[in-house]
């Protein structure tokens, strides 16, 4: 019997984009956070170039506030892939006085990542940074191109974006410019989870239900396992059964109550869910235009 390949259009599109990146740029890098989206990117990159190995390094901008489970996972994955893992720390930028740490109740290092990211792109002369952002995450992201050109300051000029027609990607840039590339632009959160399930991709344990010391603020559940998330004295710590839908900086990533201990149960929960995943990211709630403003400044 003839064995015919069935097409998953989203997967085929992402692979096409990866192959364009390595063909059109001198020195691409994959921005790896240890989260499910960047783990999915790694799998797609493997598929794009097999049997050759992934032809670019991974870059992690470490806020110093990452979940330890994510860091452990990151190191193991890079080793198995046999690709170089570059880690640059936000702490270094703080120590050098380049950025000022936020203080108070909603203090987060999330927005501080931008400076460290731009410095790292400059240091290694990366001309393309591949990221796992999706258009369904947020309204400003919905307008992002697949090849998104940034100027020398890493800025996004949202009013002057290159039109992207058919499958044709224009990655021509001047010296000093770089491009952010988003291969899973057209995937939804559910698409990513379904793919992880189908492909049996391993993800960090914090994505599954586990017992954790937590406290509640503004109707959201925060980790109290260590001192990274600022907590006021009257905010009571309780052990709850929770999981995380995204694994950003601990200080801005809230947990959800869940008993989903396996991938099929997580996918089931996502299907039923009525809160978007960014609803649990306090960094987007600062103002209605929070994401757009950060992107103009060079945020990924």
């Amino acid at each position, binding site marked *: 019997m*003839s*064995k*015919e*390949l*069935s*097409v*998953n*259009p989203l997967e*085929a*599109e992402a*692979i*096409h984009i990866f*192959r*364009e990146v*390595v*063909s059109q740029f001198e020195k691409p890098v994959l921005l790896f956070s240890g989260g499910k989206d960047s783990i999915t990117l790694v*799998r797609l990159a*493997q*598929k*794009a*170039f*097999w*049997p*050759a*190995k992934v032809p670019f390094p991974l870059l992690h901008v470490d806020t110093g506030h990452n979940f330890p489970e994510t860091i452990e996972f990151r190191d193991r994955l890079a080793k198995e*892939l046999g690709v170089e893992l570059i880690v640059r720390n936000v702490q270094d930028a703080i120590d050098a006085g380049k950025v000022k740490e936020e203080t108070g109740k909603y203090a987060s290092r999330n927005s501080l990542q931008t400076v460290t990211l731009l410095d790292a792109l400059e240091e290694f002369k990366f001309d393309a940074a591949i990221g796992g952002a999706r*258009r369904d995450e947020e*309204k*400003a992201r*919905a*307008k992002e191109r697949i090849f998104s050109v940034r100027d020398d300051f890493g800025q996004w000029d*949202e*009013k002057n974006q290159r*039109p*992207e*027609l*058919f*499958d*044709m990607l*224009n990655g*021509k*840039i*001047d010296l000093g410019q770089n491009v952010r590339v988003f291969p899973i*632009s*057209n995937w*939804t959160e559910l698409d990513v989870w*379904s*793919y992880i*399930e*189908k*492909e049996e*991709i*391993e993800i960090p344990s914090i994505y599954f239900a586990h017992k954790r010391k937590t406290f509640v603020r503004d109707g959201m559940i925060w980790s109290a396992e260590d001192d990274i998330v600022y907590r006021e004295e009257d905010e009571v710590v309780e052990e709850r059964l929770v999981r995380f839908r995204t694994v950003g900086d601990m200080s801005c990533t809230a947990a959800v109550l869940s008993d989903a201990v396996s991938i099929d149960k997580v*996918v089931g929960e996502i299907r039923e869910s009525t*809160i*978007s995943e960014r*609803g649990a990211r306090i960094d987007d709630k600062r103002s*209605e*235009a929070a994401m*757009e403003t950060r992107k103009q400044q060079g945020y990924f």
Partner: protein
Amino acid sequence: MLRGNRFTLITSTFNLQPNIMEVLKIATAGSVDDGKSTLIGRILYDTKSLTTDKLEAIETRSKANGFDYLDFSLATDGLVAEREQGITIDVAHIYFSTAKKSYIIADTPGHIEYTRNMVTGASTSQASIILVDARNGVIEQTYRHFFINNLLRIKDIVVAVNKMDLVDFSEEKFNAIKAEFEKMVANSNYKEQNITFVPISALKGDNVVGGSANTPWYKGNSILEHLEKLDAQAVYEQGQARFPVQTVVRPKSDEFHDFRGYAGKLYGNDLAVGDEVTVLPSLTKSKIKEIYFFNEKFDKASRGSSINVTLEDNINVSRGDMIVKTGEEPSVQKQLTAKVCWMDSKNLVGGTKYLLQHGVNRVQAIITGVDNVLAPDFSGSEDSDDLSLNQIGEVNIKLAKPVFYDKYAENKTNGSFILIDPQTNHTAGVGFIQ
């Protein structure tokens, strides 16, 4: 080395699970105030695709703007400038799914100065929704919207006659608009287009997702019912197999020492192991030896798949070359004529140089001349020596090296190109080869 790690071990059974669904991409077009964003918001709301936090944000803004109803357009108007001006100024992508399909809507703005965004949104879409305000009927903008859908050969078009609530759901009004639209269609030479008319109220929800008690005279489907019945695969372009090589995969590892794979995305008809093929531009002949998707071999691949192909013979193939079935070779030319939609503020004039990107292939191009500008209402063309932003016209181009193309009507992907301004690197225009 990938061998032995857990990623290569578990992929021995690559099958699509039912949870990877059919994807249908839709473009929308409408004039300012036709209610396009409201329609999309309504679809999201009625398919329960708006999450609680997004709904809350819409409620907050609607109240702040002093509305006594939910302003669904706030679900899609993404950029700060747009919210301030209350208009959509760029292509936004919106996602929702039903039990049957995943949908991607390219929300493209309708005012005259943003033709380029409409063309962009439509270029990746298989179906299209054109909005008409029931009070105003077919207006100049409607001609332009249909013209672009026609130029891009969008197979399936839904004409949503909106704001029916404001004309008392009048059947006469609806039929009059339909008749007027059909008069315009008579001028089109793309006869295979399916056009469906639906009377709707995006604000109230009539015939958008469910039916309507207000239009007992309308026996057709609601917009979503119609879209659910479309076969996303069948509305892709047909045509002969075209396999442009994106990159050559040479692992040079112990296990795959002599492996030489040609990676790319397949367009047109199927490609199968054993097919006799010709490589362009060298015209070298060989046979398909293996078709890989990741680490698994297949006998056959269909359009839209991103595969890695090996050939029986050790021949020289590089990026930008194209593998086709022998006997099905496309035109190989250093000159072409195309309809071009101009997208740059600097006019397109004869004698200027651009980079022409055809698929993954880039060649130096010189514009030998602009013939004319097409009136976007099918009324004909006007002689012109240049094309300005948002104009569409017929252009002659000479190339430094030949490209291997089809007519746009025969293969959309292999019949289109973009022009890149070598000074700014901007994508300045898109062409549809005649």
